């Protein structure tokens, strides 16, 4: 029996209003996140995946208007007051970001920044949590934690900073961890270590992980389910096996083709012709139609709805 | 080069406040020149019968802004004062630019012992609160507008020299300078041809912000009666002579010169700010 989802996002729309224009960055997407499982949210830059994550966390700026539902434990997070949402952040839902080099406050040491999470959500004092912090740092693989926690961020490498971020995020054993391109700014070898760390932690704490990335390799390594996002729409939502073995949406197929294979003999790298549209100038009909090689006449006129295909969902007129 | 200039102007125009400030600044500069010709009276002529006359608000059409404690016409004095303040301001800019550039270039380009000595000297000068420095130097040099100009310029020269030196140090290492040297260019040519143009931008920005400040210092020296002869129709000096009579209700002797100082400083400051923003945006693009 399939588990009840921990997080249900229904028809989420996010619109940014600037002096000049309104931009609909996310236009009606649905997401399901299950305990202990990982959902990979894939897409190129500008497709709206980070905005989605920030919307769930309630971290969007004032000039953003959000509609839809974000259901977590029978509560619609979008309807919560700021103070109540703050109690959930870092506590039941945590997030880590892409740039470890700038994500830690340079004027406070590691111990202070980690102790803060405990003080906020568990009400403990600085002295009480010290052993917990040491243990946490050791778990994420930081050598000599008792000494390193007195360090300031600029004394740590990028990989170590990201480990500290993960430690902070997992400190209160959250139900959900959202990771927005956590390894993009790191070296490939460190990348593998960080992903493995996240996998381990997830297993131990049974956390639901929302992994946002543009890298299909990362998806292959950590995700059970995948949602492919393009220009504010979710184009395809399947299990990871199905995505790789039998991709339905032309965009997904195009993405898979662009992965260079060392064994193949072709000389030119594959590409998807055209560029991602700016969200203020979205093409009519299906948003991908101008770059789609399997385009039908209908595709440029009507936007395809989300349709079910043997347990998966796709937004495409081919189905 | 020309298109960059046009772009700076375009960005500047967007800032409405700065545009207004620009026009006020122009008006002041015009007044500085033609002021003496517009003035109905001699600014230093004492007329003890007409002391403390109020101005147009009490129907006085002879002396629009009233007369001061020695019967001098305030309107005329203000007009003359515009010229004085602006003249000192521009002179300060000129002196600071020339001396500051020279010292900064020498210090930066030749380096070594020369650099160390000059920088130490600059440190020492910067150890003084600026007004104090200007005060003592003006007192040392004696009375006279030119001496006041020099005294005030000495406040800014160390900072400008430092900025110039910094720029020089950066430019010195640039590949195109090395290339020039390899082609046999002499030191002087390099300094003038390469270093100077690149140094100019931060220098100009610094100088535009300087004018408003310089006018304030001029007024301060005039107010304290140091370096500027108290009888000259300088705005600050006017404030000083009117100070004691404020309590007696003769407010026009101090309000008008003060408003002029405020207006001048404000418009030049806004102009400088607007210019700096416009130039910055060019740099960012």
């Amino acid at each position: 029996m399939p588990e009840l989802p921990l997080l249900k996002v229904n028809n989420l729309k996010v619109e940014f209003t600037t002096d000049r224009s309104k931009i609909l960055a996310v236009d009606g997407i649905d997401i399901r996140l299950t305990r202990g499982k990982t959902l990979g949210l894939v897409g190129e830059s500008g497709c709206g995946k980070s905005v989605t994550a920030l919307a769930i966390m309630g971290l969007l700026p004032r000039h953003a208007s959000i509609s839809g539902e974000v259901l977590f434990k029978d509560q619609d997070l979008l309807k919560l007051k700021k103070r109540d949402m703050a109690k959930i952040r870092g506590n039941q839902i945590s997030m880590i970001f892409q740039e470890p080099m700038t994500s830690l406050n340079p004027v406070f040491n590691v111990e202070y920044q980690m102790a803060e999470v405990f003080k906020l959500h568990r009400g403990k004092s600085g002295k009480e949590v010290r052993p917990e912090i040491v243990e946490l740092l050791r778990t994420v693989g930081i050598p000599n934690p008792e000494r390193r926690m007195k360090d300031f961020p600029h004394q740590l490498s990028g990989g170590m900073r990201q480990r500290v971020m993960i430690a902070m995020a997992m400190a209160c054993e959250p139900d959900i961890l959202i990771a927005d391109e956590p390894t993009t700014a790191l070296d490939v070898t460190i990348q593998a270590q960080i992903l493995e760390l996240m996998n381990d932690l997830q297993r131990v704490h049974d956390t639901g992980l929302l992994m946002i990335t543009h890298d299909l390799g990362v998806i292959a390594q950590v995700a059970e389910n995948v949602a492919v996002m393009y220009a504010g729409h979710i184009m395809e939502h399947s299990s990871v096996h199905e995505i790789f073995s039998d991709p339905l949406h032309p965009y997904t197929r195009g993405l898979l083709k662009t992965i260079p294979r060392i064994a193949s003999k072709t000389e030119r790298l594959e590409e998807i012709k055209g560029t991602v549209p700016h969200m203020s100038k979205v093409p009519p009909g299906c948003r991908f139609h101008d770059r789609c090689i399997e385009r039908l006449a209908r595709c440029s006129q009507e936007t395809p709805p989300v349709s079910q295909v043997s347990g998966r969902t796709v937004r495409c007129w081919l189905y | 080069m020309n298109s960059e200039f046009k772009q700076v102007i375009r960005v500047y125009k967007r800032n409405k406040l700065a545009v207004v400030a620009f026009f006020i600044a122009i008006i002041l500069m015009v007044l500085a020149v033609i002021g003496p010709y517009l003035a109905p009276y001699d600014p230093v002529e004492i007329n003890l019968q007409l002391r403390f006359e109020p101005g147009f608000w009490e129907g006085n059409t002879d002396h629009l802004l009233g007369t001061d404690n020695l019967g001098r016409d305030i309107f005329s004095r203000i007009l003359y004062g515009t010229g004085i303040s602006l003249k000192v301001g521009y002179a300060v800019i000129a002196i600071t630019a020339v001396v500051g550039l020279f010292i900064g270039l020498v210090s930066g380009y030749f380096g070594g012992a020369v650099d160390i000595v000059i920088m130490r000297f600059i440190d020492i000068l910067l150890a003084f609160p600026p007004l104090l420095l200007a005060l003592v130097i003006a007192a040392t040099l004696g009375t006279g507008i030119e001496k006041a100009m020099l005294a005030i310029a000495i406040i800014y020269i160390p900072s400008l020299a430092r900025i110039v030196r910094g720029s020089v140090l950066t430019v010195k290492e640039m590949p195109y300078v090395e290339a020039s040297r390899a082609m046999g260019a002499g030191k002087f040519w390099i300094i003038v041809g390469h270093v100077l143009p690149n140094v100019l931008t931060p220098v100009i920005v610094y100088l535009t912000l300087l004018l408003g400040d310089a006018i304030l210092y001029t007024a301060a020296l005039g107010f304290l009666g140091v370096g500027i002869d108290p009888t000259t129709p300088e705005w600050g000096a006017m404030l000083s002579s009117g100070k004691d009579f404020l309590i007696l209700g003769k407010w026009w002797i101090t309000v008008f010169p003060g408003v002029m100082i405020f207006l001048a400083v404000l418009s030049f400051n806004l102009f400088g700010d607007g210019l700096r923003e416009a130039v910055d945006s060019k740099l960012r693009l």
Partner: protein
Amino acid sequence: MALYKYFIKRLVLTLPTLLGVSIIVFLLIHMIPGDPVDIMLGDRVTDAAKLALEERLGLNQPLHIQYWNWFSNAVRGDFGISIRSNQPVIEEIMRRLPATVELTVVALLIAVVFGILFGVSAARYRNTAIDYSTIGFSLLGVSIPIFWLGMMLIFFFSVILGWLPVSGRLAMGISIPQMTGLYLVDALIAGKISAFWGALKHLILPAFSLATVSLALIVRVTRSSMLDILSEDYIRTARAKGVRERKVIYTHALKNAMIPVVTVIGLQLAKLMGGAILTETVFSWPGIGRLLVTAIGVRDYPVVQGVVFFVAFAFIAINIVVDLFYAYLDPRIRYD
């Protein structure tokens, strides 16, 4: 590097500057035209009297000997005797120093406290009425001449409204037992509340007029610094951790934002010291600023030298303190 090691390092580096300052001060003062002896003796100048006076004042010795005499004494706190009043210069300075300190400190407090508060509010409520009015005020404040502002304040509050006194530190007839020389502090210690209020009323206008320009500048810098910091990634992290907005602004953001603000505050100290000279003149405030102006007028060398050197020295010392605070705020500096 620990904070105190950084302190020692800075101290040692400033000693040559201090020496240079003393030399410059000495040379400058001695180049002031006008012979103090002539001024002192007035009409009764005879050559013999002149020589005698010069001898007594040590003015007939070669310049470098005069400098050395002065400097070696100055380091011990002996700045010589005032030509005008015959009192030791150091006593003249000390007698008036508390007045200036009180004025400058209160002005600084006003400028820093309100400056930071308004600056943070403007950044937090960006593009609202609070923001616009704050920016407007700071634009005006930076351009206004302090001495004129002082006069206008007097005119408005003393002459027209009659709420506040016109000049001086205290009304006639009221006395406060002198402990620190700071009237506010002394009045509180002695428990004389009415005297305290009196002193406060005398202090408000001068302190405010002195503080205005610095206040405007601090508001501006704080606002722009806060705006920069608030867009940084680590602020987003703090919010993602669930930190309350108030703590995000006043702890996470402010400590970082203060770094450039402290620099500006350090620079403002110099302006305040200079401005005190002007303010004391406007309000007839019995501080060292007024002492200096009078001394320049009568060519009282020892007093001018003493005051200038004293002020420069104080300024250098304060700068070291500011640097220390800087290093405390931003640990990245200490580890260079």
